[in-house]
C-alpha cells in the first residue's frame, strides 16, 4: 500500500537530511506505529505519502502508483483516498460536528443525499452519537479528535495517516481514541500513526517503525516503543 524505496529528503534550508535512505513497505490493512524523537522525520514521512513534499532521492509508491510520476492535477484524487488526523484536530470552529464532517464531502462535490446518509453513520462509528449538532468548543479534546477522525474517515479512504493524534489528549482519553483507530483498521483501512506516546505503543503491540535522525533504526512487528524503556 505504501512503499518507500531508498527515499532521502533534504529540505532546501537545512544541511541535514530529514530522511535518509528509507526503505519501508506497509501492506494493505496493516497498523503501523511510526516512533522516534521530535525531528526524527516522522512528519516528513507522512507528508511524502500525501505528496505535500517530493523526495530528493528515491521513490514513494502509494496504492501501486509512483508519486513522482503522478501529475499535479491528479494529486487531489490521491488525497481523497488518504485520510489525515493531526495533533491539533484542525476543526472549523464555526461549523458543528455534522457540518465539519460533511465539509470533507462537500468540497469534493458529493451529492447532498449521500452526505446526509454517510455522515451520521461515521459520527456513530467514532462514538459521538447524539452530538452531531454540538460546536467544537463545546466538546472535550478527545471528542474533538473523534470528529477529526470521522472527517478523515468519512470518504472511506484506503489509508489513514495520524500525526500524533493523542498528543493533546490525556492518557485515559487516548485509549478511547486508539480504540476508534483500531476499529477503523479492522474495516481494512491501512493506518500509519506517528507518535511518541510510549504507553500506547506498548499497550497495542502493533508493528513499530522507529526513526532516528532520518534513518529507520528498527522495524519490528508487535513491537514496543523502545527497548530501553
Amino acid at each position, binding site marked *: 500500500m505504501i512503499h518507500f524505496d531508498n527515499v532521502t529528503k533534504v529540505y532546501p534550508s537545512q544541511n541535514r537530511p530529514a530522511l535518509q535512505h528509507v526503505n519501508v513497505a506497509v501492506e494493505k490493512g496493516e497498523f503501523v506505529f511510526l516512533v522516534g524523537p521530535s525531528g526524527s522525520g516522522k512528519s516528513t514521512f507522512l507528508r511524502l505519502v500525501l505528496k505535500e513534499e517530493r523526495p530528493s532521492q528515491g521513490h514513494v509508491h502509494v496504492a501501486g502508483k509512483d508519486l513522482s510520476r503522478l501529475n499535479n492535477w491528479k*494529486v*487531489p484524487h490521491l488525497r*481523497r483516498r488518504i485520510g*489525515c488526523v493531526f495533533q491539533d484536530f484542525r476543526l472549523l470552529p464555526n461549523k458543528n460536528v455534522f457540518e465539519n464532517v460533511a*465539509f470533507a464531502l*462537500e*468540497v469534493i*462535490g458529493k451529492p447532498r443525499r449521500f452526505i446526509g446518509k454517510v455522515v451520521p453513520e461515521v459520527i456513530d462509528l467514532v462514538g459521538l452519537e447524539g452530538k452531531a449538532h454540538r460546536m467544537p468548543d463545546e466538546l472535550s479534546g478527545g471528542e474533538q479528535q473523534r470528529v477529526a477522525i470521522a*472527517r478523515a474517515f468519512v470518504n472511506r479512504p484506503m489509508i489513514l495517516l495520524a500525526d500524533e493524534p493523542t498528543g493533546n489528549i490525556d492518557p485515559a482519553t487516548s485509549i478511547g481514541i486508539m480504540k476508534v483507530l483500531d476499529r477503523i483498521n479492522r474495516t481494512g483501512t491501512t493506518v500509519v500513526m506517528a507518535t511518541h506516546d510510549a504507553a500506547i505503543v506498548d499497550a497495542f503491540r502493533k508493528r513499530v517503525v522507529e526513526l532516528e535522525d532520518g534513518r529507520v533504526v528498527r522495524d519490528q512487528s508487535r513491537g514496543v516503543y523502545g527497548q530501553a524503556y
Partner: protein
Amino acid sequence: MRVQFVLQEIWIGLRRNLTMSISLVITVAIAMALFGTGLLINKQVSNSTNYWYDKIEVSIFMCTKTSSNTSCNKADATQEQKNTIKSDLEKLPQVSAVEYESKDAAFARFKDQFSSTPGMVQSTKAGDIPDSFRVRLKNPEEYKSVSSAMLGRPGVDQVVNEQEILKKFFRILNGLQWAALLIAGIQVIAAVLIVGNTIRLSAFNRRRETGIMRLVGSSNMYIQLPFILEGAIAGLVGGILAAFLLVLSKIFLIDRLQGSLQFASQLSWSSVVGIIIFSVCVGVLLCALASFLTLRRYLKI
C-alpha cells in the same frame, strides 16, 4: 450542492473583509468610468471629425471700416470688389460652391450664437461684423491654394480656414481623451493591486478551510473558484456603478460639450451602451485575472 457551496463561500469571503471589498468596488468603478469616458470622447471625436470634414468651409472676410488690416484703408469693400472676388472664386477649379453672407445676415447669426451673453451683443453694432464669402471646397485639403489666391486682393480682409479652428478644438478633445485614459490606467493599476490584496486577505482568513480542502482532496478549481468569483463579483458591482457614472458623463459632459461647442453629430445611446458593456466586461475579467494570479502565489496547492 456544488453551486450552493461555492456561492456560500463567496458570500463569506466578501462579508469577512467588507471594507476591503467596498474599496475594491469603488476603485474598479472609478477606473472603469474613466476608461469608458475616454472611449466615449474618442468615439465623439471620430464621429465629429468625419462630419466636419464634409462641411468644411473657407471664409473670406471682406474689409470693413473697423478692420485693422492696413490694405483695407479703413473703408468698406466696394460692391465692384465683391463682384470680382465672387466671379474669380467661382472660376477656381477647387471650389464647389460660393455663398455670400451680408453684414446684416452675419450680425443676425452673431446675435443668435451669442444670445446667452447679451452684453456682448449689446456692445456690437450691425456693420461691425464683416460680410464674407463662404466657400465650400471639393477637397478640404486644398484650402491653401484658395487662400493664397485670395489673400491680399483689394477688398479682402482675411481668409479663415475652419479646418484650422477645428484642429485646435480636436486637439483639446484629444487631450481630454488621453487624460481620461491615463487616469484610468493608473486607476486600473490601483484596482489590480487592491484585488490582489483583497483576495490575499480572503485566502488568509480562510486558510483553515482551504487547508482542510487541500487535505481531503478538493480539486484546485474547487478551492480557487470562490476566490476568483469573489474578485469577479466585486468587478461586476464596480462595473455596474461605472455604468451609472458613464450615463452621467454622457448627459453632463458629452451632451453639454455638444450644446456649447455645437458638435455636429450626437453620440448615440447605442454606442454608449456598447462602451458600457465593454468596460464592464473589462472590469470583470481584470478582477478575475488579478485574483487568479494572486492565488497562484498565496494558495499553495
